[in-house]
Structure formats: structure tokens, C-alpha cells
């Protein structure tokens, strides 16, 4: 099971054929929200989990569902917004300041609102900005409770600000008038981890095959493959396995 951003961005379509050709192991990707993906793994319905919310991942391992968490890669989150930038965030330094501007201007902001990795990151940014957007829920703060792609589709029509991971954004086609307005803040770093589901809880888990996949991903070949994946000429993910 994997988070949707990796599937939607096209990363798997790029790297899996390389892996499968080499090892003749077929990898089946089930793209779901981070919460749902972790749930699938807990129920033993996946062998390998690839998500991007460190705290949940560590809890997953700590409870004995996962063998070990490996750093895999990272990219970053970006604040997307209308080209005209009515809240004038492009000029601001740092994501928190950008969000403060949006709150002050009360310009529409689309939140995933689905407890996904991205949503949790967004909430931590609001905290850093010292604002509680939930008070404005339904007014300028729109919690759409949907996947990144759906949230972007919504933002495109509303001409609203939103937070997205770079991979999904780069691959996203229905951009409307939206552009990247704020990026580069270290707080916006988005690390992905990969975990083998523990055989202790679910004896049927294909430990050996899963481990080979993880080894490949975190090994030189996998990391090279990840690094070589580009969208419209831009590198989407940066290998980070130690």
C-alpha cells in the first residue's frame, strides 16, 4: 500500500518496470490516503507500506506492525495559489508567514481535511503561524476532506490557496490559474519512509519478496531510479536512504 501522491505523480510507473525486469517480482500498488494505507497494512492486507507521515510511521513500527522504518526519499510541500496572489504571500519569507497573510486577507484556502500526511503538515504550519483556521471552516477555510488531486481540482476552480506535495502538483494537469507561490521553507520538507509489514502479526506476509523490494528501493539502483524520475523536466523526488 502506498500513499496516493507517489502513484498520482507517476513515480511507480517509472521505477517499477526497472525493478520488475530485474527481479521478476510483480509489485501491486494500492494507492490510498496515508491513513487508509496504514490501516490496510495493520490489517495485513499489504506487505510493504510507503507513506509520508513520520509520527504515524514510527507508531506503526512501535506497535509491532512494522519491522523497521527506512528513509526512502523526500521532496517538499509547496503553497499553491492564484497567479494574482491576492494575499500577497509570494513575497513573504517562510510558509507560516504566508499562511498568516492568507488568514488576514481571508482569501479562500482549500485544506485536505482528511488527516493525511499533507493535512497534518498543513495543521502544524497553521500552529506555527499562530492561527486557528477551523473557526473559519466553511467560510474562507474550506476543508474538502478529499485526496490531493481532488483538493487541487477544487482549488483550481475556487482560485484558492492550498498546500500540496510537489510530486502531485508537478504531475497535475488541471491547474487553472494556480502557480507555486511559496516554497523552500525547511518546515516544508516531506520525507517518505518505507516499512516492511511484520510477519509476527500476519504470518502470510511475503517477507522475503517485500524485503527484496525495500532493499532495492533503498539500494543504489533504486535510489538512482528515483532520482532519475522527472516531471516536465523537473526532478520530483530526492533519494535519502542511508
Amino acid at each position, binding site marked *: 500500500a502506498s500513499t496516493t501522491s507517489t502513484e498520482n505523480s507517476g513515480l511507480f510507473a517509472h521505477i517499477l518496470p526497472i525493478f520488475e525486469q530485474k527481479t521478476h517480482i510483480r509489485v501491486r500498488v494500492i494507492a*490510498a*490516503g496515508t*491513513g*487508509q*494505507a*496504514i*490501516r490496510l497494512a495493520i490489517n495485513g492486507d499489504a506487505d510493504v507500506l510507503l507513506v509520508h507521515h513520520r509520527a504515524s510511521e514510527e507508531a506503526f513500527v512501535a506497535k509491532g506492525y512494522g519491522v523497521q522504518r527506512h528513509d526512502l526519499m523526500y521532496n517538499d510541500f509547496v503553497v499553491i495559489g492564484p497567479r494574482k496572489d491576492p494575499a500577497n504571500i509570494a513575497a513573504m519569507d517562510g510558509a507560516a508567514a504566508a499562511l498568516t497573510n492568507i488568514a488576514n486577507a481571508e482569501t479562500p484556502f482549500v485544506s485536505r*481535511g*482528511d*488527516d*493525511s500526511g499533507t493535512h497534518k503538515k498543513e495543521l502544524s504550519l497553521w500552529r506555527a503561524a499562530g492561527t486557528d483556521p477551523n473557526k473559519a*471552516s*466553511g467560510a474562507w477555510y*474550506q*476543508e*474538502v*476532506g*478529499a*485526496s490531493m488531486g*481532488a483538493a487541487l*481540482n*477544487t482549488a*483550481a*476552480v*475556487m*482560485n484558492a490557496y492550498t498546500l500540496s506535495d510537489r510530486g502531485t502538483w508537478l504531475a497535475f494537469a488541471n491547474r*487553472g490559474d494556480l502557480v507555486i507561490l511559496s516554497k523552500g521553507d525547511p518546515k516544508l520538507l516531506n520525507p517518505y519512509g518505507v516499512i516492511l509489514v511484520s510477519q509476527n502479526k500476519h504470518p502470510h506476509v511475503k517477507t522475503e519478496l517485500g524485503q527484496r523490494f525495500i532493499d532495492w528501493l533503498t539500494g543504489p539502483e533504486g535510489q538512482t531510479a528515483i532520482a532519475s524520475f522527472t516531471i516536465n523536466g523537473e526532478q520530483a523526488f530526492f533519494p535519502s536512504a542511508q
Partner: protein
Amino acid sequence: MSDFSSALWAAFSLVIQLDSDLAEIVFLSLKVSLIAVSGAALIGMPLGAALALFRFRGRASMVVLLNALMGLPPVVVGLAVYLVLSRSGPLGVFGLLFTPTAMIIAQLILVTPIIAALTRQVIDDLWREYEEQFRSLGAGPGQRITALLWDGRFSLATAVLAGFGRASAEVGAVMIVGGNIDHVTRVMTTAIALEVSKGDLALALGLGIILITLSLAINGVSYVINEKARENHG
């Protein structure tokens, strides 16, 4: 099966808490579905009856089209409505996207063919019995349609209920055109989908149980009304 028991528990505690968020969602769900189904019945029933009654060129193709449209994929309908209502779309000026109105439109499009196709079926059977009598009495097209819909009303209830079932269960289209915005366009089905993606399966199931219970209640009431009326005018 602990999931199922905790789902029941979730449903139960949601209900007894009289959660105001839940009430809001339930109310919006019912409102959207009932308006959409009423509209669909208003359009679909005369349309279906007309297709059953009149023989004209292209009728067969229209019947086939209608039957096929019962299988309109919600996501596609949602998408089409989204494109039409979006700011850059032809009806963008009205700013309807991400409002309950948009959701009603999407459901209307989904449900109308269902009600129309099933109505055509019911009225077709009735018309085989009535045709010569009505032609002999000299009933005009509009009079025939109203009289047949009236005389077939007990059988047509199932068609409308099928439409209501589709509308109230539908998630793909309302998700796209409504946006599942909290306090604005969140309905039962989109809330369920959200809980699923959060991984809170028990809560999702719990909401599902509430939704099904609601739909049971509505079906129960309409069944009783229907049977009572039938007793009087069988």
C-alpha cells in the same frame, strides 16, 4: 468482527450524542437527495411515459439510450457538471460549483434516466392494457400521460425509490461538484468516504449504518402510504 461491533457502537454513540455536525450532514443529505429525486421524478416520469406511449422515429434508440444512461458513471457526471459550472465553464458566472445546488444538479442527471427507464417499463405494460380504450375515448397525448401515471402510481413507487436509492448512496459525483466542504457541502456519503481515507473504518461503517437506517425509514413510510392508498383504490 470487532470492526462491525465497534461500527455499531460508533453509530449508536453518534446518534445519542445528537451531534450537531452529524445532524447538519444528515439534513443536507436528505435535502439534496429528496430535491434531486423530486426533480428527476418530475422530468423522468412524463418522459418515460411518453416513450412508452408514442411510436415515433428514433423511439427505439431513445429507449436504448435511456436504459444505457441508467449506467452513467457518477464520476463522469460529476466531472461534466464540474466543467460546466466551473468559473471558466459556460455557466461559471452563477458560481454554483461547490454548493448544494451543484450536487442536486449532478444527482438529478444521474437519477432522471433511472426513473424514466423504469417508468417506461411500468407504463409500457399498463399501456398494452389501456391503449385501445384510451384511443377510443379520444384522450390526447397529455391526458394519456397523466392518466397512465396516475393509474400506475402504485407500481411507479418502486421506480422512484430506486432513484432515491441511487441518489442517497451516490458519492462520486457529489464529491466532485460539491467538494465535500465541511459545513457547506458535506453529506453522509462523502463523510463516509472521508473517514475511510482517514482509516477510521469503524466510524465510516457507523455513518453507513445511520445512512441505511435513514433510507429504511423513508422506504418504510412510503411503503405504508402506498399500501394504504392501494387498499382504497386497488
